[in-house]
């Protein structure tokens, strides 16, 4: 394999200008104009995804009843609103309760007893797309949104559960290897994006929602705890929550069901937050943190991102791409060593083995030991170099 000179955007980028894409899911009306100065709450566009569409619910077949009897099994009268998954009609067959539920939130508009069907008009909520960051509109994307030019800093996460939010960053825990427990969550975290250390459990997520915190940033989270929060009434199997049949979907689950946005920097399980990331965040306590979460349908590699932006937009400060070199701080990302912080002690080398060549980098662990690791297992954390 030829040695490829590859540069990377580090996980932490500071003092740069970003072009941030903000778009609605389906065609909408864009109100932003080029050169508009925006703040996080500035409305860029509106969308109405389900307008004009109806869904036919085959109630008689779902319940196994005669078509001309479906009206008597409705749980609410025609004209009622239903949440997604809420039972529209219900009957009992032997010991079992059979329900026909609404595939999406909407209003029951009609029942046809000739066919045993009902018509659901999905909610057509007008969703507003906020800018989420401070900056200036660089480009208007007709019918979709805008590109915002913003100055500041960015942290790339690994995955997130929940919706996009912004708020002042508050530090709730003093170390990157400590768990955020419910008792550490106090009412003063209301409206905040909370720096939560290593991890948190379902109880802490619920407590954060109770105090109206907007988001929490942790190193890792147990997948079972996330499932517990997303489906409190039943225990869904892992495949039911995390699996999609194939590629093309980012690992951002159940945004509408998450009580609070959880932004994860390392991965699943119990892994401390990488110390440079914790320090980067802790230094910014009080600043507005904007959490951008990949939409359903985004590429699987699309990571969530956290921005600290400022009202003044610099003319040009491009993101510095770096490559492994002596002193560059990085972390290992293979499942066994997830989040282990190391310092590169050289550039990329080509190592030929029995099954072909691979690019490797010599790294130094905090214990002082050194070894070569595959470049594929390394993520560069910051452009700042540490001397040997």
């Amino acid at each position: 394999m030829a040695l490829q000179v590859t540069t990377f955007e580090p996980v932490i980028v500071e003092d740069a200008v970003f072009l941030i894409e903000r778009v609605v899911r389906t065609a909408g009306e864009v109100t932003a104009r080029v050169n508009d100065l925006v703040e996080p709450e500035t409305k860029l566009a509106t969308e109405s995804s389900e307008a004009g569409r109806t869904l036919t619910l085959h109630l008689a077949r779902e319940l196994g009843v005669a078509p001309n009897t479906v009206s008597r099994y409705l749980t609410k009268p025609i004209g009622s609103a239903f949440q997604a998954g809420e039972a529209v009609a219900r009957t009992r067959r032997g010991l079992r309760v059979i329900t026909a539920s609404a595939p999406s939130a909407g209003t029951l508009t009609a029942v046809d007893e000739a066919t045993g069907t009902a018509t659901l008009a999905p909610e057509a909520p007008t969703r507003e797309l906020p800018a989420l960051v401070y900056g200036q509109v660089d480009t208007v994307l007709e019918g979709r949104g805008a590109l915002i030019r913003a100055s500041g800093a960015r942290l790339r996460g690994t995955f997130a559960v929940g919706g996009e939010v912004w708020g002042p960053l508050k530090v709730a825990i003093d170390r990157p290897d400590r768990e955020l427990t419910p008792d550490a969550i106090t009412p003063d975290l209301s409206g905040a994006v909370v720096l939560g250390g290593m991890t948190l459990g379902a109880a802490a997520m619920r407590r954060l929602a109770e105090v109206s915190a907007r988001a929490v940033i942790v190193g890792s989270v147990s997948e079972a705890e996330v499932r517990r929060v997303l489906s409190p009434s039943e225990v869904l199997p892992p495949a039911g929550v995390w699996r999609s049949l194939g590629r093309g979907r980012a690992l951002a689950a159940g945004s509408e069901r998450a009580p609070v946005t959880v932004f994860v920097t390392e991965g699943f399980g119990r892994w401390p937050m990488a110390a440079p990331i914790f320090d980067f965040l802790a230094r910014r306590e009080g600043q507005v943190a904007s959490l951008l979460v990949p939409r359903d349908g985004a590429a699987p590699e699309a990571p969530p991102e956290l921005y600290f932006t400022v009202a003044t937009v610099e003319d040009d400060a491009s993101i510095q791409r770096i490559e492994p070199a002596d002193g560059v701080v990085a972390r290992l990302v293979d499942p066994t060593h997830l989040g282990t912080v190391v310092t590169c002690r050289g550039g990329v080398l080509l190592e030929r083995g029995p099954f072909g060549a691979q690019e490797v980098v010599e790294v130094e662990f905090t214990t002082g030991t050194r070894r070569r690791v595959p470049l594929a297992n390394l993520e560069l954390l910051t452009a700042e170099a540490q001397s040997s």
Partner: protein
Amino acid sequence: MTGINVERSSDASSGVETFPTQAGMNGPQTRDAVLVVDVDGAAARALLFDMVEGSPRFVAVGVSRSTAVPPLDDPAPGIVRAIRDLEEQTGRALIDGEQLITPQRPNGDGIDACFVTGMPVPPLRAALITVGQSDLRRELASAARRTTTILADSTEDLPEGDGTVSSTALREWLALARPETVVLLCAGGTPDDWTVVLDAVADLARDGVVRSGIVVSDDAHQQQAAAALGSTLDLSGTDPSTVDAREIASALESELRAAYARRVSEASSGRLLAAARFVDRPHAVQSVTAFLNRRMGRNVLAVSMSEGTVLQAALEGRGAAVHRAERDLGSGVRSLLAIPPEDVLRWLPARTSTEDVTQWILNRALRPFTVMESQADRLMAAALQRELLARLVREAGLPEQPDVDLIAAGPASPGESLMLTVLTLLDGIQPTPAAGVVSVAADLEGMMVSAGAIAGSDPAYARDVLEQDFLTPLATCIVITGSAPEGALAVRGELRREGGESTRFSVPAGSLHRLPLPEGETATLILEPEPGFAVGKREPGEVVRLEGEQQVFGAELGVIIDARGRPISLPDDREARVARLQSWLADLGVPAE
């Protein structure tokens, strides 16, 4: 609605498509130097073959990280890097500017023909929705899974319930599957069932997700589908009462194979591979498996695990295949969540939990192309692969514990432990050859797919490559069947090397035993099974002398006596199971942590 083409076009049925050619250029003809580019989301590999002393031989392989996945989403830069690596290794120039040098020049630069294989663009996505019950469903699903298609099958995924189609469940399932093509099979059910299906598909079509539909039903149901979907979907149909089921399945396979080849062709806008010929991976593996079966007279099972997994078997002249384009340990790892974690856990020689299994998969999904450096990662990967292989054996329609005497697997990846690979293949496939001997070989360089790609155009060239350079023997395994209390003797025997050195051995039931025998050497193997035990499917207690033409061949890892019986059983008790797995690893010298 147009009729589905039940006569297989030669190109589609062979899985061979030509890239858009430049003016005045025809498709490639193999001559001397042949370049095969095997690219998917994980890696780009460029393999060079050329004539050496009058015979086509493998020269070298260049490898690069793939750029076929985001953020680049374009395989070309990765392919160029792989070819540049090849140039560096061989000292030959292969690219001039943006084009391959062709034909080969007198100084050795350039090539005469180029093939592309693998999965250079994302696989097709299809959904098979069956109303009623029919054996045709299985045929259609199998046909789709012989192509580069991620197939969601409603019968497999949706709860059976009372036999009717649930509108809600169907819609949710379709939203998750997001198929570009739907195959609608009407084989009974009620008129309402069919209406529910058409309504749900129509909704998805309005969102622009699904673009084409194939309706397999009588004429009346086809007309109903045409009325509901004809304005939004490109529809074709066939009536199973007038066309043989296998023909319909074959036509579906051709349609999907041709559709994928078109997708590859449309995506390859650059001039680099303008004259290259595309051969899809399942078809390439099929060519090689059939060749090995014919040429060597052996029951062959080939596994190609890269992006997606192909399992292809040729047993006693009968072929069986399955390609799960979404199931692998890379970007498709999340699909392995469909395997119950308890099933994976039973293969782990450590006290881990089902949540650890799930979290390992999810962490791998976040960074699918990391190299497995630690033994813990390799053991987890091997546990998943065992269960994946076992499922693929079933999906391919092979019997459990198939009568296989040659297993070929590849390509190898950095960090791979060959002994663990052999154990994984034995555990996942559980080969039970009638004669008791199964060879496990590795396709280290990824030549299986490459030679298969050449075979469609130049079988003689591919044959020579396969005969001389293809497989690296990893182990000769002797399968002992039968059972007895753990620790009781299963077989004893003697290995007599050609040089005269002799090794006597005895192997307890439920264990493995390794006898070193280097590649290139042969030996006579005498096996004396205890009463109740047999070599393969021979008579219990029958003494077997593998000598003369039946001599065992040396391999990288020697001879392995597998006295674990069939099916391989694991204790229910966790502690006992972990101890058993650790002992098997120790038998073969594989670290357990």
